[in-house]
């Protein structure tokens, strides 16, 4: 299981590092597959956990990557790459990852954390996603960051509580589908209106 957590963390790092939108989407699909495998292999499999695993696979490894891929194909080749990651983002990534270690030591005496390795990888994935939202400039990168943060959150639930209540699991999944659909819809309109996929262009509203 630890290997799965590690691969998920590496996928989050890869998402932050890569400029290639197709690779980003591939990494998101990989995260979806990993989360689904985690549910399948997490011990006793009830019909609800099987449903969660199947839905996760269908939505995170299938539907969302497909919708994002369709958007990439609709944009010209020259805007399928993001800008280079600014230097400060590397520093921020190191700081937030080390910050997670501090939180683990802070929560240690409370015995809240069931699986420290999973907790480290999950909270780091959430924080790396947040760094990505601030540092990355492509509309699709920001959507990918939101999905990755949410993936980290699911793992966070596993590391702390074993699993989350089924209503929360499904609520988050439905929310994610609607959010990604709306963001892609808005992203397409922004691309049409502003002739760019760079969020730096979104600076008209000030004051």
């Amino acid at each position, binding site marked *: 299981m630890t290997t799965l957590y590690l691969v998920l963390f590496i996928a989050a790092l890869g998402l932050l590092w890569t400029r290639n939108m197709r690779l980003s989407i591939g990494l998101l699909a990989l995260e979806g597959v990993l989360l689904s495998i985690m549910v399948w292999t997490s011990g006793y499999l009830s019909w609800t956990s099987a449903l969660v695993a199947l839905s996760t696979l269908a939505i995170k490894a299938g539907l969302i990557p497909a919708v994002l891929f369709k958007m990439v194909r609709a944009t010209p080749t020259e805007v399928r790459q993001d800008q280079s990651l600014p230097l400060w983002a590397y520093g921020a990534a190191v700081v937030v990852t080390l910050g997670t270690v501090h*939180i683990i030591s*802070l*929560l240690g*005496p*409370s*015995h*809240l954390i*069931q699986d420290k390795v999973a907790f480290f990888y999950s909270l780091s994935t*959430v924080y790396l996603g*947040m760094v990505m*939202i601030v540092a990355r400039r492509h*509309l699709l990168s*920001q959507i990918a960051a*939101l999905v990755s*943060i*949410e993936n980290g*959150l699911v793992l*966070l*639930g596993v590391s*702390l*509580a*074993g699993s*989350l*209540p*089924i*209503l*929360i699991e499904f*609520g*988050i999944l439905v*929310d994610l589908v*609607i*959010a990604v659909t*709306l*963001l892609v*819809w*808005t*992203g397409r*309109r*922004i691309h049409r*209106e*502003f002739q760019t996929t760079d*969020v730096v262009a*979104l*600076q*008209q*509203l000030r*004051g």
Partner: protein
Amino acid sequence: MSYSWSLMGPIAITLLATTVLRRPGSRRFKWIQALVAVNFVAVFFVIFHGIEAGSWRAIFIATTNFIALTSAWDSIYWLKEHPSIAPGRYYLWWSLFWGALIVVSLSQNLALSWLALEFSTLSSAALIVEMSDRHSLEAAWKYMVIASVGLILGLIGIVFVYASLRYQGLSWSTLDYGNLHAQYSNIAPTVRELATIFIVTGFGTKAGLVPFHTWLPDAHSEAPSPVSGLLSGILLGLSLFTVARFINAVPAVAGSVISGSELLMIFGSISVVIGSLALLVQHDLKRLLAYSSIEQVGIMAVALGVGSRVALDAALAQFVFHALIKSTLFYSAGHLTVGYGTKRIDGITDLIARSRFQSFLWAAGILALAGLPPLGLAYSEWLIISQLWIHHAYGVVLLICGGLTLTFAALTHHLIRTLWDSSHLGSEYRTSPQGAI
């Protein structure tokens, strides 16, 4: 009878929006208005005893339904002024937004409140996207991304709390406010503090507390005006009261470095100061109202931070008065900007000579918002300041009084300019062809 009946209204409108209003050329907006009105009256009778007893849920539902009623009424005129907007889609998103607000009002569970607030973000963002111009697309994007990240922070706090009480085996019900209050002493102090920080900052983002407010002026000013009324009047307050419900259910450990109440006082005070300062330099009519919302939410946060019975009642009164006044002002601003063909305050002048009704409505609303006695906000703000004084929070009293003075000066200055000042070259006012104004 169960409060869940309150959801019948949004469900009915959603059905109507996906059937009758989808037909090309359908303009049966008054059906919507009639349905919302019937829903308001019916639900009001169901929850009347709750309102009499001072139940927060009942007051939230009644206020939300009333503002939804006025929003539906204003939408009729607003849609006539904006013929490019597809009514079917508009009412679909509008009803989903209203439904999400009702669920937040009804919710007795922290996770359900989170889910409903997240859905309220998405449905209201879709309404902003419907405007389809550059500004609204920018506003909607920032709103969705920032509010979603904020709510994810809140969810981390919720997961911490759930994990601490997972031994109960209650699943979803673990996060019922009643259960949280009964079991809070079993949550480790460090976890309680961390969860509180995550929840206050996360839900505080949705409530528009400074410094997490950056999405708010953009989203509220670019949304359709009937939606701005709901966003500003209802959603901000409900998000803030969700924080307060959590803080009341899971109080801080005695002697803890920082508590939820202190965080609310700190962020609330900063919001009042920043919100009122921003009012002085605004050039856009709807942004003026949006920054005023930040200031008002700040006052509510301070009152909720005090936490005494009277302060909580005052915060509730502030929520209701603000919802009534701010929604009216947003509807009015929507028609003024269409009438004058500009959103710039210096382009909207000499209103008193051009529309008596509009000028009366605008002046009454702005003066009420400025806190002029005996209008409602003056009463609740006075109660809040007196509670701060009683609890020896003199520094906060100073900040709030300074902020309120600035707000009064800024709002009356802008009011005088819009009513009488004709020294600028104000845009020519035109009456809407549909007679909306």
